[in-house]
């Protein structure tokens, strides 16, 4: 009997949308078919290679031998092992064993501090969540969520180093004391881009103490755009006031914030946050995006124009001129008709929204673009207090840049350098500045950092830095609100020093370095310093201080906008930039981009970030050059990218192509490799693997930065073991370093590049874009607010039709499952009358940023599996961030600029769940409150459930990922003989309320059941307190639904909490319209994923709404990206 194949309904004949996840799917390759049809690709359940199989067989025999030999002694161990309960001797205040404590703190970042609430269990910080009390609270992004892992990172720097060799603390103390006692020292301080009021105050004291003190600031990816606003000034956008937004390469929703982005996302929803209003297209904002490669914000844009980086300035000039900006008068005009037809209605739309529109530019854009942006906002009346665009003065004025620093070193004005920037200047400074040479010229250089990176080795001294959760500090958010950085724990390793502690040691008379704790348990000197700063800003006394510690911020302390006008520099910068642009001409251009996993390289040792697939390219553990398909074809490398490769070897050495391959070629698998190109730019040549990237401008190559920091093995690229000590196991052998290509003039863009395919070389890449691909009709749905010629009606009509897009949507067959929804007595199985959990995910505001994915990993103890395992499709993330591209067949405006739709998919908790019916041991069963529960201890690992899951939401522990370090080669295959994590502290991060799963166990999203249980139990405790308060005997007490049901919207699941876009609503379905979830479920644009198969999922999706401008030339192709995978 052949396998019964489920027939999905037909795609309507008039469907004009083509949708795809990967180039392989566009070509309908057999490998993609395999991903679709199978739970895991062929071979995922087998040993990696003969070598692994051999080790495993041997280990097995060894173990068997050993265990029989020991059997005689075995009986002696048949006694219950003794375990101990170790209470505190002196109970710390507030700590209740088994309960979390929450403190307000924040993560200092160059773009502005992220206000946080930190969850602690018995003094261990385990989870970060945004501080929603804070006026500037957005959500958190993946970097913030993952930063808690850095605290426990096994490769964290723990001991001081001198000249790259371990040094003693006593020597370090002596060196600091000597420096502190020399007021004539010519000492330079290099800070990061974050703003700390206490540091700013101490800067003044340092300048007073050291007559030769100089201060600098360096962030690898800062760009020079900030110059346009003045020294230490920066733009801040107020999205709540912006109805029309034009962004020049500014990923303000994710990696490049310019203000509170949650206001932007709120205005994306036609019903507003909380879905309280009626859907109203007028209330939505409209986003125009001009960029070179897809950014997450670009993916949300209503109209997106892709241009090469050099062209962007020309476009900005054209728009500025049409808006009447005098500075743009002499700029070259745009000649392209299509671009002109795009600009004309845009300018009209902006003019029609004077004072209510907003124009922003990416921080990596040159000053010329920022000058124009400032001028455009001025002309449009958007500038000023109470308007969408403001310029504010931060405390970081009067700081030199890296160029000034190097000049001062060479002139002898700086002899000692204290480096505190989180960047890694020896690695990431522009190549032509030759920072290492300048560093070598210094008498003394001190590096404070959390990693033993190349700068730590090159400096004369390295001091291990405390994590931000380990020391007192303060910071300002993007909008300037004073925010405290509160430590949760003393430094995990006793030699770790915070930035303020080092500055305070240098300021003290005796130069004594006090870190962590003062003498006899006194607070660190940084505490007093922060209190002193705060006293000057927020007032003296304990009351104000305590409320700062409780709330995490000082109300009303945001920056006041300054009166900004385009500066005189504009007249110099713009013509210069135009000249540079014309020089680049039509040449191949390179964009040096921040990486979504490692940023500028600082997070290279963070395993969660490395394993989180890049939101756009879906690359894990590496970087790769990205290139548009057409450009790749023109350069003759497209076929190479998609080419079949020898994937299996007969007799061990004869390459055989074909069906016996463990996993296919372009279909990502363990043999997935990318061709390698040789990129020549700025007179240097480097090699990079290359993959296709859709929606990218032609003639542009994007290279994410930050990789290639250390290697411990030989590879095909001539990279010998080198710099191994600079990185940990996570960061070793990762990707390719592109920093040597950058020069001062071309820090973020470079023209005049050339590319050559390197014949015969390929690089293995773990790409997840095809993993867990689902079949289905109308998986993600998109509608438009306008009625263009072939839209099926206006906004109202389209809203109405959302739930009827597939032919069977409107009349889904009745549930004919053998498993009824009632028990034998006719009682409903979903019997809980207090709580029925449900979720809704709004595709309108979801941009696919991975914050939820990493938050889920932190909350639910999800293991990291390593590059090789990811390549085989074994990643464990409970939330899979699907990313679809969709294009209209008849798109004649720009056929290579598809729509990008992200769709997070976790377990949707089907009421009629296919997984439950096939489990032979009832390890996955339904709870009365509607969860599809997983009993890990009962699971025997048949994987039938995963096979039967139409959403592919289940993950299987092929190995003991939690116990055996998957990053050591072949380690997983050694079974019980494999190395465990040694020396690390990852286990301290684990959530004590979630079981750590072992090998052979299936797992999946359970709606954070531990949080739900906690909330429900907390509510039940209230019953007793109520009785006590009423003074009545408990037997006369009235217990009602409202006593036992948790308050509306009072429990948040980890993904929902982290989401910066409030795209996820979660709650109790029985609260109906009182809850945000209930209102979302009532909306017309609410639909169930794979509705027609009758699984009755509890997680539903809200269709994406696009708000195009009907006058734009591409308007009729917008808002139709409904995804069918056939």
């Amino acid at each position, binding site marked *: 009997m052949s396998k019964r194949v489920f027939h999905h309904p037909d795609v309507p004949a008039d469907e004009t949308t083509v949708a795809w996840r990967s180039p392989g799917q566009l070509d309908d390759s057999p490998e993609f078919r395999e991903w679709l049809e199978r739970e895991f690709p062929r071979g995922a359940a087998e040993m990696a290679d003969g070598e692994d199989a051999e080790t495993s067989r041997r280990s097995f025999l060894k173990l068997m031998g050993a265990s029989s030999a020991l059997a005689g002694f075995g009986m002696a161990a048949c006694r219950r092992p003794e375990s*101990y309960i170790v209470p*505190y*001797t002196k109970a710390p205040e507030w700590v209740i*064993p088994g309960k979390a404590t929450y403190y307000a703190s924040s993560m200092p970042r160059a773009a502005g501090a992220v206000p946080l609430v930190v969850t602690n269990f018995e003094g261990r910080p385990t989870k970060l969540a945004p501080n929603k009390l804070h006026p500037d609270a957005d959500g958190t992004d993946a970097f913030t969520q993952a930063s808690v892992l850095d605290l426990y990172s096994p490769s964290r720097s723990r001991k001081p180093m001198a000249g790259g060799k371990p040094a003693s603390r006593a020597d370090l103390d002596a060196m600091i004391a000597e420096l502190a006692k020399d007021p004539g020292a010519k000492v330079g301080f290099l800070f990061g881009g974050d703003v700390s009021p206490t540091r700013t105050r101490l800067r003044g004291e340092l300048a007073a103490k050291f007559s030769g003190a100089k201060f600098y600031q360096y962030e690898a990816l800062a760009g020079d755009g900030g110059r346009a606003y003045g020294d230490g000034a920066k733009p801040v956008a107020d999205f709540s006031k912006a109805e029309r937004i034009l962004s020049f390469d500014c990923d303000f929703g994710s990696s490049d914030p310019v203000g509170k982005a949650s206001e932007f996302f709120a205005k994306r929803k036609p019903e507003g946050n909380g879905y309280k209003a009626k859907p109203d297209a007028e209330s939505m904002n409209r986003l125009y995006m001009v960029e070179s490669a897809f950014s997450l914000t670009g993916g949300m844009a209503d109209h997106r124009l892709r241009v090469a980086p050099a062209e962007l300035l020309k476009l900005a000039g054209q728009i500025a001129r049409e808006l009447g900006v005098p500075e743009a008068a002499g700029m070259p005009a745009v000649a392209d008709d299509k671009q002109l037809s795009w600009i004309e209605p845009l300018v009209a739309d902006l003019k029609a929204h004077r004072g209510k529109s907003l124009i922003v530019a990416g921080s990596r854009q040159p000053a010329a673009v920022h000058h124009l942006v400032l001028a455009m906002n001025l002309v449009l009346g958007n500038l000023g207090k109470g308007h969408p665009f403001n310029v504010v003065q931060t405390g970081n004025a009067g700081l030199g840049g890296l160029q000034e620093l190097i000049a001062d070193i060479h002139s002898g004005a700086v002899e000692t350098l204290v480096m505190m920037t989180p960047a890694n200047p020896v690695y990431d400074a522009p190549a032509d500045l030759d920072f290492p040479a300048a560093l070598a010229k210094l008498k003394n250089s001190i590096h404070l950092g959390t990693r033993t990176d190349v700068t730590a080795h090159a400096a004369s001294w390295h001091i291990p830095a405390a994590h931000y959760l380990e020391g007192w500090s303060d910071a300002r958010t993007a909008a300037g609100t004073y925010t405290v950085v509160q430590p949760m724990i003393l430094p995990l390793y006793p030699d770790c020093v915070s930035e303020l502690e080092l500055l305070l040691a240098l300021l003290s008379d005796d130069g004594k370095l006090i870190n962590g704790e003062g003498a006899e348990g006194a607070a660190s000197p940084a505490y007093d310093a922060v209190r002193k700063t705060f006293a000057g800003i927020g007032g003296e006394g304990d009351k104000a201080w305590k409320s700062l510690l409780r709330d995490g911020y000082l109300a009303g302390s945001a920056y006041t906008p300054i009166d900004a006008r385009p500066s005189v520099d504009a007249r110099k910068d713009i013509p210069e930039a135009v000249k540079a642009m014309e020089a680049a001409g039509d040449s191949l251009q390179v964009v040096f981009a921040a990486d979504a996993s490692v940023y500028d390289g600082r997070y290279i040792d963070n395993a969660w970030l490395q394993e989180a697939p890049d939101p756009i390219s879906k690359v894990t553990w590496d970087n790769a050059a990205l290139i548009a398909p057409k450009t790749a074809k023109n350069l003759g490398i497209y076929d190479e990218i998609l080419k079949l490769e020898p994937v299996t070897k007969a007799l061990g050495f004869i390459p055989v192509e074909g069906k016996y391959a463990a996993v296919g070629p372009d279909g990502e698998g363990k043999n997935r490799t990318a061709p390698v190109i040789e990129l020549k730019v700025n007179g240097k040549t480097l090699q990079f693997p290359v993959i296709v990237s859709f929606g990218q401008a032609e003639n542009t190559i994007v290279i994410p930065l930050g990789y290639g920091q250390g290697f411990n093995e030989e590879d095909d690229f001539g990279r010998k073991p080198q710099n191994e000590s600079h990185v940990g196991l996570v960061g070793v052998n990762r990707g390719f370093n592109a920093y040597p290509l950058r020069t001062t003039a071309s820090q973020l863009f470079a023209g005049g590049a050339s590319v050559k395919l390197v014949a015969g070389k390929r690089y293995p890449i773990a790409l997840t874009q095809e993993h867990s691909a689902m079949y289905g009709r109308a998986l993600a749905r998109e509608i438009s607010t306008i009625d263009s010629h072939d839209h099926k009606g206006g906004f109202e009509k389209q809203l109405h039709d959302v739930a009827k897009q597939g032919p069977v949507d409107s009349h889904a067959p009745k549930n004919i499952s053998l498993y009824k929804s009632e028990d034998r007595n006719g009682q409903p199985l979903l019997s809980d009358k207090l709580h029925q959990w449900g979720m809704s995910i709004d595709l309108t505001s979801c941009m696919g940023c991975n914050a939820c994915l990493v938050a889920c990993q932190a909350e639910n103890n999800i293991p990291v599996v390593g590059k090789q395992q990811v390549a085989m499709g074994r990643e464990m993330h409970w939330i899979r961030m699907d990313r679809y591209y969709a294009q209209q067949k008849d798109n004649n405006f720009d056929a290579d600029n598809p729509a990008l739709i992200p769709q997070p998919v976790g377990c949707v908790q089907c009421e009629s769940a296919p997984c439950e019916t096939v489990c032979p041991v009832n390890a996955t069963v339904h709870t009365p409150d509607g969860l599809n*529960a997983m009993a890990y201890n*009962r699971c025997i690992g048949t994987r039938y459930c995963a096979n039967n899951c139409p959403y592919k939401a289940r993950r299987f522990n092929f190995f003991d990922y939690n116990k055996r370090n998957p990053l050591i080669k072949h380690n997983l295959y050694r079974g019980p003989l494999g190395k465990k994590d040694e020396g690390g502290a990852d286990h301290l991060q684990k959530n004590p309320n979630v*079981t750590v799963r072992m090998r052979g166990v299936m797992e999946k999203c359970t709606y954070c059941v531990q949080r739900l*249980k906690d909330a429900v139990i907390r509510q039940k*405790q209230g019953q007793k307190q109520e*009785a006590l308060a009423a003074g009545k005997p408990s037997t006369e007490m009235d217990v009602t639904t409202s006593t036992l049901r948790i308050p509306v919207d009072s429990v948040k699941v980890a993904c929902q909490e982290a989401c910066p876009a409030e795209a996820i609503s979660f709650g109790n379905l029985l609260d109906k319209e009182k809850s945000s979830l209930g209102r979302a479920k009532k909306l017309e644009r609410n639909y169930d994923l794979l509705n027609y198969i009758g699984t009755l999922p509890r997680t539903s999706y809200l269709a994406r709404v696009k708000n195009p401008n009907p006058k734009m030339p591409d308007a009729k192709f917008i808002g139709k990206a409904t995804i069918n995978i056939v």
Partner: protein
Amino acid sequence: MANIFPRWSNLLPLKIVVCAGTVAGGIALAFSYYATPKTLAVGYQPSQPIPFSHKIHVDQLGLDCRYCHSFVEVSGHSNVPTGNTCWNCHQHVQQDSPKLEPLHISMNPNHPSYDGEPIEWVRIHKLPDYVYFNHSAHVSRGISCQSCHGDVDQMEVVYQAENLSMGWCLECHRSPEDNLRPLEEVFNFAYDAEDWLTENPMEGVDTTEELGLKLKEQFKVTPKESCATCHH
């Protein structure tokens, strides 16, 4: 051709099967009896660093459970008292008792071998790591300490009174009325349902069974039997 096997060997296969079956059956029976929590866990009574007597403290002195296990009503864990809880009294009472030596080492800075390290109590009631039992959920809904821990007030040395197996948990989750008490009586080890009923007569409640059912109805106690209740 001569017989290779003698005649008696004809029944040998049968004998082997019977013997092997008996042995296997025996092992299975023995395992299912001796290797279950009922046998392995009940009565577990390790000696503690300090021979703390619950009988003296609870029964004779009348301390409430929550004086030491102070967070049992708010936390999933019922905490074992911290050193300073003991020290509150014992810096004044029974100072010279040699039994309290470990407490002095832990808490008394004047003691010659004072080290400030906590006392390591031997754990008696231990559930597997994948079980999340919540004390507060039970004691604030009318389940007494006594129901699971036995007559601790009478124990000189604490031992495990019940087997704490999943079947045992489910027994009560299926019929909680057998163990429900008025909330005021949860920590009362001398509680007797009949006496309580005599003192607090309730309309329509005559027997202790009816009291349990009445409390279940009134508190709206609906214990869950689904996996996720304890396993997550």
